[in-house]
């Protein structure tokens, strides 16, 4: 479903991704691990269409369609979802209003029925309870004054609502204590499905104890330098990035 071939990406003239190749099939869970600054978030932003990221070489296709020139909102409507490493705070827009606006915008773009306030409320309540997102949180401005854990749960709530085909989780584990991590991981695992692929980006192996990947890739210096099964994550944990980066070089 997702083919990334020899992807080179520049930000402000500086090359960050330097020939990244990755192929993900429907239903697979891929983990990307790598040191800070290796380009993990850059990859997630390029896939979701953030401005300022220039693809200078290579290509990305999603279900056979070129992704690079597609607007972010169109990608979202086609099922690409990014759980942000740092979810944005938006004062003045209540979480509930935001969720419904987004849900209906995607539905409209796909030609599906939009939901009225009452039906949408029912849908949200059902999903929010599982992630312990309180109705008070839903009434507050989006992410404003939310704790780190609340922000991440809110991201996963959105994933549950929008039911994407490709979910990219960018360091969803960062800043979470173990209980919060389990809650979020349970939420993600509940969404594993044969037609839903995931790209789980993390710096630490810990998250992968809970969200067990089919494949693990090591990203360093803007390229994938090593790929393997879930045991690669344990190897990284044991030996550190240094040894893998140097042995691959």
């Amino acid at each position, binding site marked *: 479903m997702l083919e990334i071939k020899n992807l080179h990406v520049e930000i402000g003239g500086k090359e960050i991704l330097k020939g990244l190749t990755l192929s993900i099939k429907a239903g697979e869970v891929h983990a990307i691990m790598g040191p800070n600054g290796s380009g993990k978030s850059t990859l997630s932003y390029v896939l*979701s*269409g*953030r*401005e300022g*990221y220039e693809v200078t070489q290579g290509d990305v296709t999603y279900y056979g369609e070129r992704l690079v*020139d*597609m*607007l*972010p*909102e169109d*990608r*979202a*409507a086609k099922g690409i979802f*990014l759980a*942000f490493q740092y*979810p*944005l705070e*938006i*004062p*003045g*827009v209540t979480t509930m209003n*935001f969720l419904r*606006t*987004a*849900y209906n*915008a*995607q539905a409209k*773009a796909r030609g599906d029925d939009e939901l009225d306030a009452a039906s949408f409320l029912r849908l949200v309540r059902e999903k929010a309870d599982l992630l312990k997102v309180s109705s008070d949180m839903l009434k507050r*401005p989006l992410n404003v004054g939310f704790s780190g854990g609340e922000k991440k749960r809110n991201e996963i709530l*959105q994933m549950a609502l*929008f039911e994407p085909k490709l979910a990219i989780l960018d360091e969803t584990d960062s800043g979470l204590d173990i209980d919060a991590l389990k809650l979020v991981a349970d939420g993600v695992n509940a969404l594993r499905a044969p037609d839903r692929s995931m790209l789980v980006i993390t710096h630490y192996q810990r998250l992968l104890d809970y969200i067990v990947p089919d494949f693990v890739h090591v990203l360093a210096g803007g390229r994938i330098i090593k790929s393997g099964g879930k045991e690669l994550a344990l190897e990284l944990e044991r030996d550190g990035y240094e040894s893998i980066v140097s042995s691959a070089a």
Partner: protein
Amino acid sequence: MPLKPMSVQPTQKQTTLRVAASQGDIEKPYLDACERVLAEGVRESDWLKAHRREGIERFKAYGFPHRRVEAWKFTDLRPKMKEQFNLVRGQETPQHVVVTPFDETPSYRLFINDGVFESALSSVPKQNGVEIVTLRQSGQDLPAWVKDQLVSTASLSSGPMLELGTALMRDGLFIYIAEGTVLDRPLHVIFQTTSETAQYHTRLSIVLEKGVEATLLESHVSANGQASFHNQATQIQLGEGAILRHISVEATHKENLHVTSLNARLAQSASYTAMSAVSGGALVRTEAKIMLEGAGARTNLSGVYMLVETQHCDHTIVIDHAAPNCTSRQVYQGVLTESARGVFQGKVVVAKGAGGTDAHQLSRALLLSDKAEADAKPELEIYADDVKCSHGATIGELDREALFYLRARGIPLGQAKSLLIEAFLDDVVEGAADEVLSAPIKNHISNWLKEHEAQIIQEGHRP
């Protein structure tokens, strides 16, 4: 009438630079019109004619405002005044009554068409303690309190536009509410422009006696697509502990000129809350002077503006803290796109002896295009000790990261921008009015955003 006029102080001379040299060409047609009005004003008392004559003479001395005059630094009215605006003569009840944002709000409608009060389209409150007088109906024999209002307006708001208005005003609406009177609904003054290429000069005056609480809604709409010129003067006088909420919407056609001179005087513990929303007009300017004359008086002024094309909106405000322990707030926020321009000049003057003053002003503008412009000039002039004053001004763009977040959730660019703009503007509206009064304004903003989505999007944010 039990009104004891507050002592009228001599006009605090603003920088009234006289521009006699350039006077002439632009002013001449207006001065000719003044003479005609005076000659024809048969149904007016000698007192009113003399009052108009004073206006003419003072306007002659002033000339139209120049940008060299501090208060007009950012707004150039002179070129606009070269257009030939017709003085509307006869009175015809309009065929068509335009919708206003407050049509769903229960109110007493006071309808002014082309500057003339239309009793057939109005619902005047009929109860003891409420007096409503119009210049046209009572011009031959004005009650003393109306004369007092005219005199204080002339004295407190003096300036070229006010004087021109004194000379040319077609009508005026004067409202007096006596102590102990309770109005069950807001008053809603509607100014509609019907005649094409018209100029009209109006007066609106409201006096609330001690302890009276009232809400004044004001709508400006047009029934045609032609340029018109409305020169308005508003006089507000609040007795001890009186409370006035004043909410206005400028939604006229985008060719309109609308200039307002507003003066408010507050006695001890009185409270004046004003909130304006400007989305119409080619040039809309409000020059307000709020005089906190009694201890503990409070004023809360706020405004939102939404401008496209070459629309120009100017708020120039002076707050005079003349007594101790008064509070003032100014919050003006606007969004500008294409080549629109927004101006905020806010001056707080704290007189000697006005200790315990608490004054804040804030101006924030969102620019959606490179050609849009915002000017902010907050000023403080403090002659007292023990005061708390602050001001802030920001000019910025929409938060690009927030926009990306919304778009990454499937919300298209135009809708994402609208959502952020709406949050920015609603914040001001919610801070100024309760739900009943803020809802119509929020609707107005929301409708404006829907109608102007293309202009809001402007340059596409291609990834």
